[in-house]
């Protein structure tokens, strides 16, 4: 399904992968922790080749994954045991496990729910539990495959906040998303089309190519659309805006400009 894909991601980067349905995003992400192994070429994770079956355990410890459906990732019948599942698999001693489970649940603000069965949680809460299960394993990188797409706007904000916080702590974040405003928050965007990477660059660069993106059934963030619209009538206003903060700054800047001119 993938063709000729080459790229590398640095520690601490925040990368978004976008592309329409069936373009190969999930296939690509599954290569990143060795769930799929390449038919040709190699995937190296932290110096380990995913083809080496002896290394798989270390690779998966380094690269955690969170999937789309919050319900299908929870194995155990109560929250804290689910968070511990990965640690049990790694053979982490019990005292250490207790500590890590507590830390992970606190990071996603779910500690008070630790004794709940998963079917008594909302979708957003379940997704946070799934993230805690990965966090507890202390990975260096987490791949989110449309992890917010089944959530309501509040659940989504919660998960995005966890993602940003983890990135601030130095963790590498890779997120597959259909939300352009979500992708705009990343340091870098990879655009995929029929198994190939067709664009790769910082959001600002990517979102400059509106026509190309719409050919690929993609879009630009609403803020950017407004900026473009404003730019059309007022040339001083930059069309290169990709988030709200920039938009506000641009308004200040342009206002000053208009004032000094007028």
């Amino acid at each position, binding site marked *: 399904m993938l063709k000729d894909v080459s790229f590398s991601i640095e520690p601490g980067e925040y990368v978004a992968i976008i592309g329409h349905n069936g373009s190969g995003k999930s296939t690509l992400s599954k290569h990143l922790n060795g769930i799929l192994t390449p038919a040709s070429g190699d995937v190296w994770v932290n110096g380990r080749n995913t083809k080496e079956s002896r290394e798989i355990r270390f690779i998966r410890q380094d690269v955690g994954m969170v999937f789309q459906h919050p*319900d*299908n990732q929870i*194995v155990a019948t109560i929250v804290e045991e689910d968070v511990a599942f990965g640690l049990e698999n790694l053979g982490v001693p019990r005292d250490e*496990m207790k500590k890590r489970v507590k830390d992970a649940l606190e990071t996603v603000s779910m500690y008070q729910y630790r004794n709940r*069965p*998963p*079917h008594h949680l909302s979708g957003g809460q379940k997704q946070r539990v799934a993230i805690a299960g990965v966090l507890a*394993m202390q990975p260096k990188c987490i791949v989110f495959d449309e992890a917010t797409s089944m959530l309501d706007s509040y659940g989504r904000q919660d998960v995005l906040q966890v993602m940003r916080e983890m990135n601030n702590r130095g963790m590498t974040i890779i997120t597959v998303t259909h939300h352009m405003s979500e992708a705009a928050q990343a340091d870098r965007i990879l655009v995929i089309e029929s198994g190939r990477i067709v664009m790769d660059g910082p959001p600002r660069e990517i979102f400059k190519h509106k026509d190309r993106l719409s050919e690929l059934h993609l879009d630009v963030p609403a803020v950017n659309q407004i900026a473009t619209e404003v730019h059309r009538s007022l040339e001083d206003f930059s069309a290169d805006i990709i988030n709200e903060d920039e938009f506000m700054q641009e308004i200040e800047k342009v206002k000053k400009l208009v004032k000094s001119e007028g």
Partner: protein
Amino acid sequence: MVAAEFELSRNITIGQYVPTGSIIHRVDPRIKVLAFTIIVLAIALNTSYIGNAMGLLFSIYLFWLSKIPISYGLSGVKPAIPFIIILAVLQLLFQGSIFSGGKTYFEFGFILITGESIRLVIVSAVRFIEIIFVSSVLTLSTSTTELTHAIQSLLSPLKKVKFPVHEFSLVITIAIRFVPTFAIEMEKMMKAQASRGAEFGTGEWWRIIKRTKEMFPIIIPLFNVAMHRAEDLILAMESRCYIPGGTRTAYTVYEVKRKDFLILGAGTVFAVFLFAFPFPI
């Protein structure tokens, strides 16, 4: 079709755990399962009136000890009542010729009602209720998670004969985890298909094929959904380093205290007494 038919209980847990924090709740789950199994066995093997009366009292005492309202136990008995009645009638009609003895009360053709067969009817009905009571106390006072741990731990000697104990208990965990999920899924499916005009359980009962076909719109989608969920779950487990047959540590560990042994001892003594004491009637 009544609307209430679509409301499946999405909170199906075994026996609906009622957390009261009683002494019974605090017993080590492994010990609890063992003790209750022994008691149920003793009750099942008991055929005397007095023994069963004691068993009944004892099972009520267990409810009191566990601070769970006895109404929970009764609601467990309720669905079994038709079953108990049919069983009783059949036993009354047919059993006499096998377990003859005592006074003969009625005889017609092969139907023979004797003192012995009447006793059998009463005793098995009461025994049935006792067993439901006792098992209810176990399941109402033990969370499903604890039960799974208990099963895992009680089976662990089987590791010696290469029985995959870990996998077995993981299977049970996953099953219990997904039962409410599929209850919700099934409810949704029934509602969705009913919205398209599907009807369930209509038509004459002898048109078995027609009635069977009515279930397609539910079973096929349920199966597809189950397969998708299974695929997702496999990915999620493997991503979290689940390796079949690998050595794992355990997050939850129970320690048996002296109190637990005392309870096991008391249960065993009672069971042995029920089983071995020569009750006069």
